[in-house]
């Protein structure tokens, strides 16, 4: 290709992952809403025999949303952003194109197999690492393919300097590779003994060690799937959509290296008051507080990018999505450290405040940012105007209200439960039996379920808007430079 000629980016893989993002988003969130209603109305456990109980569905929900929806979104944006910031098209390398397509195919098959095996109750029981060893091996294969795609595209790039977003994609790839490999170390029992199910394995680590490795992984899966790649997205899509430069380059650097260094220590906060050594609990607690700095560093960098341009919030709902995402990132990254303080953790741990925290982060930050990214990509990928601005506005307010209902109800529920568990009367006996602390939460579970349902409806509006954009949006004669065009 001649220098100066326009590069023809290839979006076929980005489109495939966009489809997967929406599909798994709907599946994962429908299951989430069912779970929420099951807690409020337990009779709903009996809709599908042993396959419909809360306990069977719960890992399906977390896996569906984390690895079905979020990872798809990460890959979709990578296959879009990667080409653009490296100034190279996938088309130029048949090899990398093949890698990308195989990556998608194997990934998609794995998630479908994950759904089937989890429904059957085939699980290792480690949170966010429930898949059994044959599926783990499959995950490793397509994760490596993603790595080949990242470093392959970097290898043939025309842009010499790696843009910030690429740093974050690289970090996500490397960290998850390390974490996943170590945490999923297991011995397949049928291969050693010659007996039993071929799918079964036993963890390499026992008891306290297993817990330590698991939460080193578990917390950092949050770090390197729900945080780092999403920051990669906002660093690309917010400046692009708003036509503003990133506020501070230095702050980007500090926040990046700070986040990578500190995040890995914070996993210990899942194990406060457990049997892991005290100094690790303390490190987990302290480092979680330190983590506020790099987290807020990125978020403030994003907010300040909009300095003097806040009027765009009124004219462009996509900016609104991204700014709200940044704000929820700040909320979630101040809430997490607060929960890591030992005395707070003593009340918060094991209660509904924890799912509350996870969900204000995921619903407000991760899902909002991914939806905004896909909305921005749609006109460029499909060459069409976004189908409906008013639908996007409605969706925005519906989902924002939904998140507020979700996390406020869970905050109240969690703290109520934590306080009731430890309440003593004047004679030094426990005031409440355990069941008292369950039944009191019924109203909050109902509010949460309603919030979840509203959020799901908003997501369906998003899916419909994307579908109409791809098929019925007004055709654009040239690619929009910044603000995405949308019909009223």
């Amino acid at each position, binding site marked *: 290709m001649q220098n100066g000629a326009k590069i023809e980016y290839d979006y076929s893989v980005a489109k495939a992952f966009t489809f997967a993002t929406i599909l798994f988003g709907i599946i994962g969130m429908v299951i989430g809403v069912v779970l929420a209603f099951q807690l409020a109305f337990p009779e709903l456990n009996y809709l599908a025999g042993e396959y419909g109980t809360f306990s069977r569905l719960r890992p399906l929900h977390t896996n569906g949303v984390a690895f079905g929806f979020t990872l798809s979104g990460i890959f979709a944006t990578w296959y879009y952003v990667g080409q653009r910031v490296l100034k190279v098209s996938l088309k130029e390398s048949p090899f990398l194109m093949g890698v990308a397509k195989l990556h998608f195919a194997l990934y998609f098959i794995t998630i479908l197999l994950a759904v089937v095996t989890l429904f059957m109750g085939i699980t290792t029981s480690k949170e966010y690492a429930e898949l059994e060893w044959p599926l783990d091996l499959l995950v490793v294969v397509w994760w490596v393919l993603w790595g080949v795609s990242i470093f392959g595209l970097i290898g043939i790039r025309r842009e010499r*300097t790696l843009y910030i977003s690429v740093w974050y994609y690289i970090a996500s790839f490397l960290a998850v590779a390390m974490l996943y490999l170590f945490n999923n170390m297991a*011995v397949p029992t049928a291969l050693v003994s010659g007996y039993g199910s071929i799918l079964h394995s*036993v963890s390499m680590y*026992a008891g306290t060690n297993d817990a330590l490795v698991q939460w080193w992984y578990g917390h950092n899966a949050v770090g390197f799937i729900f945080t780092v790649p999403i920051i990669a997205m906002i660093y690309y899509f917010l400046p692009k959509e708003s036509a503003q430069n990133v506020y501070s380059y230095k702050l980007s650097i500090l926040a990046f290296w700070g986040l990578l260094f500190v995040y*890995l220590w914070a996993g210990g906060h899942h194990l406060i008051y457990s049997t892991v050594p005290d100094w690790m609990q303390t490190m987990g607690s302290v480092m979680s507080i330190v983590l506020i700095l790099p987290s807020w560093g990125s978020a403030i960098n994003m907010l300040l990018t909009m300095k003097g341009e806040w009027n765009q919030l009124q004219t462009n709902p996509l900016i609104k999505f991204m700014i709200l995402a940044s704000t929820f990132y700040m909320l979630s990254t101040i809430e997490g450290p607060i929960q890591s303080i030992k005395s707070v953790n003593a009340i918060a741990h094991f209660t*509904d405040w924890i799912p509350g925290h996870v969900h204000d982060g995921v619903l407000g930050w991760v899902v909002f940012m991914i939806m905004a990214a896909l909305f921005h990509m749609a006109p460029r990928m499909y060459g069409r105007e976004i189908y409906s601005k008013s639908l996007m506005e409605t969706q925005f307010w519906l989902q924002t209200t939904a998140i507020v209902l979700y996390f406020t109800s869970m905050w109240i529920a969690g703290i109520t439960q934590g306080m009731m568990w430890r309440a003593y009367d004047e004679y030094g006996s426990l005031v409440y039996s*355990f069941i008292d602390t369950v039944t009191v939460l019924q109203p909050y579970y109902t509010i949460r379920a309603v919030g979840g349902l509203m959020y799901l409806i908003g997501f369906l509006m998003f899916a419909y808007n994307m579908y109409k954009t791809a098929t019925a949006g007004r055709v654009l004669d040239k690619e929009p430079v910044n603000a995405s065009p949308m019909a009223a």
Partner: protein
Amino acid sequence: MFHWLEQRPFFFAVAVFLVVAFAGIIEIIPDFAKQSKPVVGTKPYTILELTGRHVYIKDSCNACHSQLIRPFKSETDRYGMYSLSGEYAYDRPFLWGSKRTGPDLWRVGNYRTTDWHENHMWDPKSVVPGSIMPAYKHHFTNIADVETAYAEAYTVKAVFNTPYDVDINGDGSVDVPLGTWEEAKARALEEARAIAADMKNQSVKDAVARGEIPEIVALIAYMNSLK
């Protein structure tokens, strides 16, 4: 420095990896051996108990129940002695959980009986009015997979030296026998008979009499072993 790194993806990636791996090396490795020493009296699970543990995992009981008692008066009053690291030496995987929608179960064997568990799994509301736990009636009909539990016990004995077929406390007798698959199967059935004798569900009793072990029997064996 960063300008230099930004243009050299290889060194950039190496730098990222080192920064990321650092915490794990410092935090995880030093205490590994110490944490895995069993407390005196801790024994590996029998085959039937291990089978029940698999049922517990299969139905993700750990999604709602913890197995970790924190060192607070409110918890020791409610559940019993707080947890010690060495008690978990044979727990692969650990099952501490992260959310208590139901109570902790680490010492449930001390204060619940076979009869209670049977009623509870059949209809939770019959013993705990207001319970939001689903009933697990399918545990009364599904036949448990004892063979996979045997495979696991065999594997941990071979690979991790878990003390099956060993005199752990030095009183001259083997504490938890494993033996061949045939022996293990026979022993599991024997244990199952003792539990089924305390149960009232006739189809479960019949199944055990036929030589089959329904999931509920194994699960109760596991629950009763948590002390």
